[in-house]
């Protein structure tokens, strides 16, 4: 076990390093404009540009530049070109909001996705199944920023105008410490918008898995042994069908926190980590985008490693055959 963990950790570190290099290259090798001019602000003098060039080492070799960038990032010295604020600090401030969105949505989509998947599997072939499958497909096909914007406007703004009171707030985020009730109130619509896609997806996957396993031999054996349909369902079918779902859920959760919620955050104005990067896009402000990209990828790699280790601890087979999985 410890060898497995060690191998995984080394693999993780290697990937993290490669991620940092690639992110750095994306931002420093590709762009054609002189980064020093961009950083110098609105009225740069030749001296200012030179000073920045030296401070950031733009005249140094690529390797040294990489070192400087990483150092600045990890010591909290990387500042945005436009707001002059420390990038890491801003990410830190946005993290609770992104976490609130991600965790809440993850719980919701898991519950509803599994529920819907079970329901449609049990009624496979019937009209309700077909209808719900179509709905699920529609859910998968919807751009989250579009449905989110529409929800925010029609349910948040227009509805409140019609009703005369605010049933749903129109965007924004309230700190939990300030008012737990408002915190919840403001997250209902974002959670829903973000979950729609996943619910559609998970329900279909689960349905497929259930229908696959329900015809497997060992299930037939269990039935022959006299177990009730319900017991068969719960003990064997569901448990096996859920494994890929849980894997998927882990992957998705990591990606959503890592930055996948950027669209939802922007549309509902939650000012989380994702929106921080999105705001920087308009200005082509590189440091926040670089930092958020690295943060996102790091989180995904880190989280997946932990999940792998946990799985290995639970299922010895994985440890043994880990030799040649990609």
């Amino acid at each position: 076990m410890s060898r497995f963990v060690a191998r995984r950790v080394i693999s993780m570190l290697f990937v993290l390093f490669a991620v940092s290099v690639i992110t750095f290259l994306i931002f420093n090798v590709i762009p054609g404009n002189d980064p020093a001019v961009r950083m110098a602000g609105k009225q740069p003098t030749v001296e200012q540009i030179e000073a920045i060039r030296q401070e950031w080492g733009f005249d140094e070799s690529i390797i040294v530049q990489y070192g400087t960038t990483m150092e600045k990032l990890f010591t909290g010295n990387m500042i945005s070109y436009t707001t002059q604020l420390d990038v890491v600090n801003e990410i830190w401030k946005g993290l609770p909001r992104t976490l609130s969105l991600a965790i809440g949505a993850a719980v919701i989509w898991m519950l509803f996705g599994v529920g819907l998947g079970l329901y449609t599997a049990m009624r496979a072939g019937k009209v309700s199944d077909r209808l719900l499958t179509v709905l699920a497909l529609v859910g998968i096909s919807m751009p989250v920023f579009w449905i989110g914007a529409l929800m925010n406007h029609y349910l948040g703004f227009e509805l409140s105008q019609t009703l005369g009171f605010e049933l749903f707030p129109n965007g924004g985020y309230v700190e939990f410490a300030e008012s737990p009730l408002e915190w919840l109130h403001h997250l209902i619509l974002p959670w829903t918008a973000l979950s729609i896609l996943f619910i559609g997806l998970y329900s279909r996957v689960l349905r497929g898995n259930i229908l696959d396993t329900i015809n497997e031999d060992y299930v037939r054996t269990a039935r022959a042994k006299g177990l009730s349909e319900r017991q068969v369902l719960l003990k064997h079918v569901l448990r096996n069908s859920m494994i890929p779902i849980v894997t998927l859920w882990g992957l998705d959760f990591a990606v959503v926190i890592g930055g996948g919620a950027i669209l939802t955050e922007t549309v509902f104005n939650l000012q989380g980590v994702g929106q921080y990067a999105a705001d920087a896009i308009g200005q082509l402000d590189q440091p926040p985008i670089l930092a958020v990209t690295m943060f996102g990828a790091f989180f995904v790699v880190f989280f997946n490693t932990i999940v792998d280790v946990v799985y290995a601890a639970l299922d010895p087979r994985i440890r043994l055959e880990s030799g040649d999985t990609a």
Partner: protein
Amino acid sequence: MSLKVDGPGRRSRLLATLAALALASSATLAACGDDDDDGSGGATAEGGEITISQSSQPDYLDPALSYTVNGWEPMWLVYTPLLTYAHEEGTAGAELIPGLAEDLPEVSEDGLTYTLTLRDGLTYSDGTDVVASDFERTIQRVLNLESGGAPFYQVIEGAEDYLAGNDPEADISGIETDDESGEITITLTEADSSFANVLAMNFAGLVPGDTEFKNLTESPPPGVGTYEITESVPNRQFVMERVDGFADLGLEIPEASIDTITTQIIKNPQQSTQDVLNGELDYQQDPPPADLKPTVIEQADDRYEEFTTSSTYYFFMNHDVAPFDDPLVREAVNYGVDKPALARLFAGELAPGCSFLPPGMPGYDEAFDTTECPYGDPTQPPDIAKAQDLLKQAGADGTAVTVYGNTDDPTPAVTQAYADMLNEIGLDAEVELLDGGVYFQTVGNAKTEAQTGFTNWFQDFPHPLNFYFLVDGDTIQPTNNQNFGNVNDPKINDTIDELSLETDLEAVADQWAELDRYLIEPPQSSIVPYGHRKLATFVSERIDFESIIQHPVYQNDYSSFALKEGEE
């Protein structure tokens, strides 16, 4: 996405506004509700707390560095310079009054020496005494931190040497202070009649003599003002609290009414507008976006008002590069630009105009800006036929032109529309958009040889020189040029020099107006102005709308905000 009124990064990103002038602007104002001019409202309550919003973090919460309205609007009330402006609307608000100084400065005959005396018994919000040498530290910070405002103070003797040296604590020879008597003597390298206004800028808001030489946005220094900044969380919010005992200092500045003002950074203007509509926010600094204006006018007419700012939006034409080196071509363009069309791209928040000097500026001539425009009434469609004719006369038909613009909304659409107009009169125009962060450096670089492009200017202070340096042949430089069109007319240059020596603005206002006419009319046709930006005051129902003072330089005066009686 949203209209960034702060606009692309020019030297002056400062928004200054001018409210309804009794004389001038009924034509350019969209009157939505009346406003008392003297700031005395109905029954109001003392004290209270309000929450307001800005759509982006102030560039800095440090008086030496901030150069945007986001910073100036709040910090005007926190850091008082030696001189300041009267807290009044209209031209009254453009009047200089003593701030921390006892009186307006004594200026020597040759215009090179300014003498002021610091008032007695002043203290900062943290209790420290204010002494005359604090002024030198204040200016040192502006220069040392390479503030956007530094150029204004480089006219002080010794400023260049200070900048060249590396010691932040080095003495600036042109500033002499005496803590005992409180006397401050400033010597300039050349006479500049706008220097008094420069002394009144936020950059010169006094801070204690031991204030550090670094950006203090996260923990702003103490100052002398009716408010102090007690909390600063960049990109989230900052809090201002009323200073007890400010009235006792005996300044000519009124004390504020509201106890606590919390400014939140709400990036989405649609959201902040909706919040002000339903009372979750008390005031938003940015105007409501075009999308919500009908709703605002419908539901909140009594607490919403638009006003025209002291700004001019224009296209520069490069006098050194074909085809705009030909005055006939420049004239043609002026005839061909469709100003009402451009105004639509600003969602109507642009008052079509013809003059370079904006409303509220001494020397502004409303008739010239509207009905007496040499190219036709700016609110009417242009005379395309005449423009095409002139172009053919000049033989410039079909000339290739690159039109420069930046990516800050709504500039791309404006630039494209302008290029379309040039095409219609017979040129062959294409658009080149640059990122907002590099735009002005690029078009201000002689090597670019930019033929024509987008630009604008908002006043830094109500003095025509603040606009005219943009068309002064003497300010042309190979890089970081602000005179993008390389306008170099000897008569203009000489008149500017002449008028800049006059310290009595009112007396020479007519001459400035004449100069403006000369600049715009054919055959000079130096630039293509098309209008002046409009902004708005929009508050919640809690606030007494009548008592709000719309200041020509600092927009909405927070110290005039008061809750209605009975509001908590």
